[in-house]
C-alpha cells in the first residue's frame, strides 16, 4: 500500500516538474508547442505553428535531403533560402505520426540557413516551409526510406 502511494506521489511530482519546466521554454509556450508538434496531420501542424496552411510553392528555397535514406533514424536536412525577412523555417515529414519534425526561429541578423538530422518512419514527402515577410513558402521532396527510423 505504501509502495503504491509512493509511486503516485512520484508520478505527480514528475508531472508537475515537467509541466512547470515546459512553461519556462523561452521560445514558445507549451500550449503552442503541443498544438503544432502533437498534431497528426501536416495541415493541423501548419495551423498549430502558423495559424495558416496557405503555402506558396517557391523555387528560392534550397532544400537538401537525400533521395534515398538508408537509415531512417538519421536523415540529414539543410534548408537555405534567399527570400528576404525570414522569421521561421520548419520541416514537415508527411507520414510521420506527428508530421512537424522541427521549427527554427530566425531572429533578425541570423541566416536563413539551418541543418538538422531527422527521423523518417517510411518513404514519404518532406516539406520545407519558410515564413518570409509574413507569408509561408514551401518546397517538397520525396525521400525513399529503406529502414524506418521511428521505433522498434
Amino acid at each position, binding site marked *: 500500500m505504501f509502495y503504491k502511494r509512493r509511486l503516485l506521489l512520484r508520478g505527480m511530482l514528475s508531472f508537475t516538474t515537467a509541466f512547470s519546466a*515546459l512553461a519556462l521554454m523561452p521560445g514558445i509556450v507549451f500550449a503552442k508547442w503541443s498544438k503544432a508538434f502533437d498534431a497528426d496531420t501536416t495541415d493541423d501542424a501548419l495551423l498549430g505553428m502558423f495559424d495558416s496552411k496557405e503555402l506558396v510553392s517557391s523555387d528560392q528555397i534550397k532544400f537538401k535531403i537525400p533521395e534515398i535514406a538508408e537509415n531512417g533514424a538519421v536523415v540529414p536536412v*539543410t534548408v537555405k533560402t534567399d527570400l528576404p525577412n525570414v522569421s521561421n523555417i520548419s520541416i514537415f515529414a508527411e507520414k510521420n505520426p506527428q508530421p512537424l519534425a522541427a521549427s527554427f*526561429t530566425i531572429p533578425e541578423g541570423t541566416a536563413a540557413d539551418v541543418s*538538422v538530422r531527422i527521423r523518417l518512419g517510411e518513404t514519404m514527402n518532406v516539406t520545407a516551409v519558410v515564413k518570409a515577410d509574413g507569408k509561408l513558402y514551401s518546397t517538397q521532396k520525396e525521400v525513399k526510406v529503406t529502414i524506418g527510423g521511428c521505433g*522498434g
Partner: protein
Amino acid sequence: MKVKAKMRKDMVSVKLLAQHPMETGLRKDKETGETIPAKFIQELSCMYKEKTVFIANFGRAVSKNPYLAFSFSGGQKGDPLTLSWIDNTGETKTTEAVIK
C-alpha cells in the same frame, strides 16, 4: 554539448552536437516489451550578448544526439556564446562556447 563556433567572413558559424537519447516514446524495450517513455529535447536556444540569435523547437522526429548548424551576424572572435536546451521531462543543459 559539443559546440564549434567560428567566424566565417562576417558571420558566426555554429555547429553543435547535443548528447541526448531523443526517445520517441514509440520504441519498446526488447526484453520487457514495455514502451520506453518519450524523452526528447523540445527547445534549444543560442544567446549572444543577451540576444537570442537562434531557437530550435523539436518534435519527436529529431535524431538521437541532435546535430544543428546555423549562423548569425554581429559576432566577434573571442566572444562567448551560450547554448541551452530543455527536454520534455524538464531536464536542462547549458553550455558556453567561445567564437574562434
